[in-house]
C-alpha cells in the first residue's frame, strides 16, 4: 500500500483547483498571481512524468519569467481605474460555452484513454542520434534538440528574435531607441541592492552550471539562459546595471548570435559532412558546445527584452 497514488491525485486536484481559480477569480491580479503558483505546480507534475528537463524549463520560463511578465502587465492594467466594468456574458451563454468546453475536454480525455498500445516511440531514433551525430551527449533531450531536431531549435530561436522585434515595434515612434520602461526605479533601494548583489553572482554560476551539465544531465541552453536572464533582470530592477537602449549594437549582436551561429554551423554541415545540419564526426561535440554557448547568449539577451516591453520615453524632469 503506497501513498504515492494519493499524492498524485491530490496534486492533480490542486492543479485543477488553481486553474479553476485562474479562470474564476473576480480580481485580475488574483488571477495573475494564481498563474505564478500554477507554473510552480506544473513543475511538480513534470517531475512525476520523469521529465526533469521540462520541469526545469517550466520552473524557469513558465513560472519565473512568465510570472514577472504577467505581474507587470496585471499591475499596470490594474492601475487603469477608469475601466468601466465590461458587460459580462449572460448565464445561458456561459452555460453553453461550459458544455462546449466540457465536450472538448471529454473528447481529449477519451482520446487519452484510447492511446494506441504498444505506444509509438521515437526513442530508438533519438538514441541513435545521441550516439551518432550528437556524439558524446549523455542527455538524450539535448541530443534531440541540437541534433535530431536541430532545425526546430534554430527556428525557435528565430521566433524569439521575431517576438523581440514585435514587442519593440509596439512602442511609440518618439521613444524609439530608448530603454524599456519597467526596470526604471527612481533610486536604488538598499535591501533590494543587497539581494541583487548576493543573488546575481550565485545565479550566474548556477545558470552556467545548468548550461554546462546539459550535455549529460537535465539542463541546457534554454534552462541556463532563462536563469541568467532572470538574474540580469534582477540586477536591472535593483539599479545595479542600467537597462540597455534598444538600439545598442551589442544588444542586437547578442540577440542574433545564437541563431546566426546555428545557421552557419548548419550550412557548413552541408559542405563538410554532406547534409544540412550534419556535424562532422569527431568534431560534433565541440561544434555543439559552441552552438549552445551562443544560444545561451541569445536567450539571456532575449528574455529580459521580452519582459521589459517596448522602449518608452523618459519623462523629462
Amino acid at each position, binding site marked *: 500500500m503506497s501513498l504515492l497514488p494519493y499524492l498524485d491525485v491530490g496534486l492533480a486536484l490542486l492543479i485543477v483547483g488553481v486553474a479553476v481559480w485562474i479562470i474564476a477569480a473576480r480580481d485580475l491580479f488574483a488571477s495573475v498571481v494564481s498563474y505564478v503558483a500554477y507554473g510552480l505546480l506544473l513543475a511538480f507534475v513534470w517531475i512525476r512524468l520523469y521529465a526533469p528537463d521540462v520541469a526545469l*524549463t517550466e520552473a524557469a520560463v513558465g513560472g519565473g519569467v512568465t510570472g514577472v511578465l504577467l505581474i507587470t502587465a496585471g499591475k499596470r492594467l490594474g492601475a487603469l481605474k477608469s*475601466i468601466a466594468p465590461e458587460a459580462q456574458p449572460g448565464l445561458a451563454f456561459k452555460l453553453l460555452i461550459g458544455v462546449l468546453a466540457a465536450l472538448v475536454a471529454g473528447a481529449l480525455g477519451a482520446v487519452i484513454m484510447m492511446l494506441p498500445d504498444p505506444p509509438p516511440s521515437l526513442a530508438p531514433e533519438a538514441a541513435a542520434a545521441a550516439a551518432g551525430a550528437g556524439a558524446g551527449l549523455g542527455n*538524450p533531450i539535448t541530443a534531440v*534538440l541540437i541534433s*535530431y531536431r536541430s532545425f*526546430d531549435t534554430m527556428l525557435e530561436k528565430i521566433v524569439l528574435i521575431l517576438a523581440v522585434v514585435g514587442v519593440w515595434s509596439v512602442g511609440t515612434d518618439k521613444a524609439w531607441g530608448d530603454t524599456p520602461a519597467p526596470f526604471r526605479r527612481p533610486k536604488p533601494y538598499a535591501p533590494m541592492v543587497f539581494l541583487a548583489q548576493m543573488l546575481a553572482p550565485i545565479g550566474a554560476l548556477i545558470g552556467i552550471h545548468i548550461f554546462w551539465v546539459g550535455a549529460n544531465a537535465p539542463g541546457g541552453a534554454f534552462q541556463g539562459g532563462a536563469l541568467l536572464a532572470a538574474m540580469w533582470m534582477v540586477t536591472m530592477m535593483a539599479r545595479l546595471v542600467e537597462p540597455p537602449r534598444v538600439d545598442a549594437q551589442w544588444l542586437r549582436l547578442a540577440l542574433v548570435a545564437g541563431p546566426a551561429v546555428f545557421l552557419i554551423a548548419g550550412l557548413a554541415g552541408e559542405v563538410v559532412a554532406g547534409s544540412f545540419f550534419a556535424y562532422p564526426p569527431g568534431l560534433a561535440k565541440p561544434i555543439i558546445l559552441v552552438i549552445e554557448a551562443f544560444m545561451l547568449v541569445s536567450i539571456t539577451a532575449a528574455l529580459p527584452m521580452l519582459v521589459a516591453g517596448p522602449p518608452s520615453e523618459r519623462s523629462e524632469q
Partner: protein
Amino acid sequence: MTPSVLAGLVGAALVGLGLYGLIIHPHPLRKLLAFNLIGSGVFLVFGLVARRGAAAGFAFDPVPQAMVITGIVVAFAASAVAVALILRLAVEAGRVTLDPEAWSRPKGEDAK
C-alpha cells in the same frame, strides 16, 4: 490508472478550462491567461505520450519532451508579444477592452 495517465487527464481538463475562460472573459489579459492554460494542458498530454513511449533504455521518449521545451519558450515569446499589444491598446484607448466600438466613443464616455 498510472500517474502519467492522470497527468494526461489533468491536461485534458486544463484545455477545457482554458477554452471556457478564453471565450467567457472580456478582459484581454484574462484571455491570455486562459490561452496559456490551454497551452500547458497540451504540453501535459505531450508529457503523457513521452512517458508512454519509454523505449531504448530511456524512462521516456525524448522527442516529445524536447518539443515541449521548445513549446514552452515559444509560448512565452507569444505571451510577451500579446502583453505588449494589450498594454499599448490600453494606453491608446484609455481602457482595457477588445470592444471595437470603444474606439468610436470619446474617452470618459464609457458604457453605462
